[in-house]
């Protein structure tokens, strides 16, 4: 009664074929990640030790640790976050909750999208011109972090705006009808329910900020410093630039060191990401509709 016809069999074969094809392509995505992580761990793990993480490089950087670079990257990311998160979140709230839909708002939106598409080397030159020279911050942590902040602002704005817009309109209307002002509505209903999405944006920003090399090369990061930065107007070493230096600029570099630096950089980003993801899951578990 239910014997397969010619067409049935053909459809079934095709279905199997495409399932295999799509599944295989998905699986192949994991391959580069696995290869990168595998290589880094196998080749880089042996050099990683307490001393490697917490001492300064010595002997033309072929010996000693990477502490100044590690500290520098953390500082750069933190200062960049301090600048871009308040600015980006505020702009996103305005765009999502207050801005009327007119040509000016649309122009700002277009500008944000374009800002996201600007290559990082262009940001680097902008940072050099604006922060290092015009504002006279010199090549410093402040100038480098602000350059990174400008570069990652679109990520924060777009992620925040989207998570604000994911909060149902009915919630806002219910509040407005009660006599709440826009700000009361934002403060009590919209923001608490958008926090998880905003965190996602911040996570993405951290990952990108920590790994960027070009924007900081001209604005605040240096190959080598014999001392640790004492404030935001000092120059600093950074992991990403340090990786570039040890893998291309230093003769007779032990082969394991660049792998170790890369492993630390990736490990740091993964660590920050997983902390934020854990926080996000905790918050999401508390809020539901």
């Amino acid at each position, binding site marked *: 009664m239910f014997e397969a016809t010619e067409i049935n069999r053909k459809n079934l074969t095709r279905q199997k074929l495409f399932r295999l094809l799509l599944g295989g392509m998905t699986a192949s995505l994991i391959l580069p990640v696995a290869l990168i992580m595998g290589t880094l761990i196998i080749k880089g793990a042996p050099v990683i030790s307490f001393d490697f993480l917490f001492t300064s490089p010595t002997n033309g950087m072929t010996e000693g640790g990477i502490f100044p670079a590690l500290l520098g990257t953390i500082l750069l990311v933190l200062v960049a976050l301090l600048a871009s998160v308040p600015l980006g979140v505020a702009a996103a709230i305005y765009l999502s909750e207050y801005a*009327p*839909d007119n040509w000016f708002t649309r122009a700002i939106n277009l500008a944000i999208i374009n800002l996201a598409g600007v290559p990082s080397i262009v940001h680097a030159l902008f940072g050099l011109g604006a922060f290092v020279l015009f504002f006279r911050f010199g090549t410093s942590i402040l100038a480098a972090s602000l350059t990174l902040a400008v570069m990652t602002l679109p990520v924060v704005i777009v992620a925040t705006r989207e998570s604000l817009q994911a909060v149902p309109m*009915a*919630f806002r*209307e*219910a*509040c*407005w*009808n*009660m*006599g*709440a*002002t826009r700000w*009361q509505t934002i403060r*009590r*209903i919209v923001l*608490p*329910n958008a926090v998880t999405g905003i965190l996602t944006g911040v996570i993405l920003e951290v990952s990108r900020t920590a790994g960027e090399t070009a924007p900081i090369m001209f604005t605040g990061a240096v190959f080598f410093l014999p001392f640790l930065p004492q404030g935001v107007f000092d120059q600093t070493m950074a992991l990403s630039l340090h990786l570039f230096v040890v893998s291309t600029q230093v003769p007779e570099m032990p082969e394991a060191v660049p792998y170790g630096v890369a492993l630390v950089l990736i490990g740091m980003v993964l660590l920050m990401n997983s902390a934020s993801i854990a926080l996000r899951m905790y918050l999401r578990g508390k*809020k*539901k*509709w």
Partner: protein
Amino acid sequence: MVDGKTVKEDASLVTDGTNQSPIKLGVENLSIHYETGPALENVTLDIREHEIFGIIGPANAGKTSFLKAINRMDMFNPEMKIDGKITFDGTDISKVRNVYGLRSRIGVVFPLPVGLPLSVYDNVALAPRLAGLKNKAELNVIVERCLTRAALWDEVKDRLDSLGSMLSGGQQQRLTIARALSQDPDLLMLDEFSIAVDPVTTMRIEDVLKELKSEMTIILVTNLVQQARRLADRTAFFLDGECVEISVTEDLFTGEVGDQRTRDYVEGRFG
């Protein structure tokens, strides 16, 4: 029916043209336009204190726009243009500076229940808090009173901390009513509140409304003609942005109607 009758007999408030109670809401030549076209044209009517004023009519009749205009929600929607005059207790609402004060005297219940993603307690305490009340004991009293009056207290009194948005649909709608009552409004506007609510809950809410009538004015927009018949003292019939008829509710069903379309609608011949 029986209820309708008793209301008619006991209330001096009623609506047979000899109604003596003052006008709560006066509407003169009200028109509402959106960019896509008109939603309501040239509506004139008076709603008196302590009456339940029903509004019936098919979709796109302008019923919801009418409620939005009363609550000045055009402020949040630049596409919405309001012409004409609405007075609340004699004051022209288009000239009210503090629209937040106006809105806080008007409670609104929506077609789909909106449990805000706050605890049950915080949902009901929100409006008093927005108005600046911080005293915990006073808030407790308000929350219990409003939930009780919305016929929800017994079901949620042991879980005031759980999320309002996770209650069942019928409970959320009663929560919405409790929230509207927490503003201590003079005017309660319900927009097709029974769409997403089971019949038993609908009946419970209808009983609540009959009791509330002694304290406030109620505008009941409803998709159920029989609900208007059960509750409303007077009813207006809106059709395609026009207010076709306003009369004592029972007259729509059994008495003289001014327009044949009204009778056709209440008897289910279209709509």
